[in-house]
């Protein structure tokens, strides 16, 4: 066994350029895979961020509305007291929210407006600076979007024709698609010209409440659709993330294929070039299995080194992207690194297939021919 390992290692080390090339190829492929995957999970986290941080476990929306971000919801008037009367509902926090297009010094910027009552909740969960709005002319703006547009506390932003003063900057409310900003609910009602209206109710339930039956009772109320926050988050993900997840997954598969092909090609040419030496081993009495191992160990060494380098590279690149473009959130899961190494392993196994066939096909008697 040791002999095979050292032969494989020597063969690799003898061709440093070639080794570097295959390691580099795998590293890039793994890096791309990891960054794309982490980008996808970052995007998912951004999309569900509001629901993840808002109070309560259930959401009441307008009938047929299943998303937070996908559709405009308007609850029937007077529903609030009906909902609060439902057994095991503790508290109902109303918000009025909608997508709006902001005009930030000439640039159109879609953003998600949340009107909330600072005394009740449903507003920003983490302030980077400043405070919550105290008047109908104040707002909390997403910190990253503010920075991108050079906005500071005290600056004014026009929303649907009215000016608001930024009094707070919120953290974790950014997304490259949907940044959030927060107004008092009454201010939002004014803007949307619908006094007293509410889009969603965020419900907290009493301890030990059965969510299923609570939902059932809520759904018996007219003109509403009640669902868990998780369900709603999943629906939002379906709406937005899936648009991107298919092409991203395709790119991940392509990266894997490219990585496999790079290692495969490098190990294949290395094997073909050394055909004669493998033939010598075969003539001397090495079994095919031994030669497979020599080839496979080379492929493994190249892909696993490449995968490790790819993991490091991915972390570096992610830090760099997030520093330059803070609206992008790139979230690595520790299991991603495991996946990267596993895919490195997969690349090696696939890459060793063709070279192994070359080795298997060598006729030992050929060794005496010149």
């Amino acid at each position: 066994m040791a002999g095979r390992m050292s032969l494989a290692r020597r063969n690799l080390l003898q061709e440093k350029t070639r080794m570097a090339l295959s390691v580099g190829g795998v590293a890039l492929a793994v890096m791309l895979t990891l960054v794309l995957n982490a980008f996808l999970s970052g995007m998912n986290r951004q999309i569900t961020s509001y629901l993840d941080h808002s109070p309560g476990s259930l959401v009441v929306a307008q009938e047929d509305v299943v998303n937070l971000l996908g559709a405009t919801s308007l609850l029937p008037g007077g529903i609030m007291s009906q909902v609060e009367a439902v057994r095991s509902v503790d508290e109902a926090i109303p918000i009025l929210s909608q997508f709006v297009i902001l005009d930030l010094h000439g640039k159109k910027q879609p953003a998600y407006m949340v009107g909330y009552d600072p005394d009740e909740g449903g507003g920003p969960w983490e302030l980077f600076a400043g405070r919550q709005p105290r008047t109908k002319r104040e707002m909390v703006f997403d910190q990253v979007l503010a920075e991108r547009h050079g906005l500071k506390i005290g600056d004014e932003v026009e929303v649907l024709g009215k000016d608001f003063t930024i009094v707070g900057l919120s953290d974790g409310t950014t997304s490259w698609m949907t940044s959030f900003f927060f107004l008092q609910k009454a201010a939002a009602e004014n803007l949307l010209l619908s006094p007293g209206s509410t889009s969603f109710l965020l419900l907290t339930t009493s301890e030990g409440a059965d969510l299923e039956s609570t939902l059932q009772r809520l759904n018996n109320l007219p003109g509403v659709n009640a669902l868990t926050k998780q369900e709603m988050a999943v629906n939002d993900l379906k709406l937005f993330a899936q648009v991107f997840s298919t092409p991203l997954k395709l790119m991940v598969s392509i990266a894997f294929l490219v990585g496999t092909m790079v290692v495969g090609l490098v190990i294949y040419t290395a094997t073909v070039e050394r055909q004669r030496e493998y033939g010598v081993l075969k003539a001397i009495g090495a079994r095919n299995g031994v030669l497979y191992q020599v080839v496979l160990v080379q492929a493994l060494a190249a892909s696993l080194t490449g995968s490790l380098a790819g993991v490091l590279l991915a972390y570096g690149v992610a830090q760099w992207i997030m520093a330059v473009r803070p609206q992008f959130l790139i979230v690595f899961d520790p299991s991603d690194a495991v996946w990267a190494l596993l895919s490195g392993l997969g690349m090696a196994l696939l890459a060793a297939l063709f070279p192994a066939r070359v080795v298997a096909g060598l006729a030992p008697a050929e060794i005496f021919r010149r």
Partner: protein
Amino acid sequence: MKKDLADVPGRLAPTSTLEVDHVTKRYGSGDTEVAAVREVSLSVAAGEIVLIMGPSGSGKTTLLSMLGALLKPSAGEIRLNGEVISAMRENHLPDIRLRKFGFIFQDFNLLSALSALENVAIVAELAGIKRSAARKAAAILLTNLGLGDRLNFLPEKLSGGEKQRVAIARALINDPALILADEPTANLDSKIGHEIMRLLRQIAKKQGRSVVIVSHDQRIKDIADRVLWLEDGQFKDMVTMATDPVCGMTVELDNEIKIEWEGQLFYFCAKGCRDEFFSHPEQFSSRSVQPVKG
């Protein structure tokens, strides 16, 4: 440089006999069929050096490959110590080659990424010897072959003669009963070639191994116990052979190109050699007709 195998420890090779019984090898089929070796029989005793000579394409390499279990005969039997290796299943052959035969090639065929020591040790490791023991045995063997100060050299840093000695060490490391060599001196100058021949002779005489050599090199006849002439895939009588006094090639006695000079017959491989002989007969005539011993 001391290159003596006499004091290699533990070298008492098991005696064995190789028998070739009416062996035929055909390549291809139908119209393109070539019978490279035809009904050849041969027996090699322990400690015997057999030299197989013959024109190009006569089947020497084919025969040697069959002797070494690298190639299956189309017909006939090859027995090693009575065991019919020509009928063995394919997956038994690697072990036979690994343990029973040592191969030596014209172009050395060392593994370029491994040092001299590793080239030898890996073959022992393939046979299941532990790494440290394999390296130790390889070092002793190489040192006995005069390569003690070359152990960690890569093949590219070795001379042709050194490479061939590494190859010989590799062939010996698993203590085989038989050494098979195809043109072992063809890529070496005559002095180094002579050293290699001396080594092969020691391997046979001091260690009791059988050595089968295929070669065009006339000088190997000096160390061979028996010289066989293969032609058209069959052994021919050697008494009918003579040596061209100009180029040293072996030629047949029924050759057209011959002359009588000072009462002696001279045979030539080609008209060019005959013409050269004519220009300086006194220079060549001392190397007169040498009917090859049968």
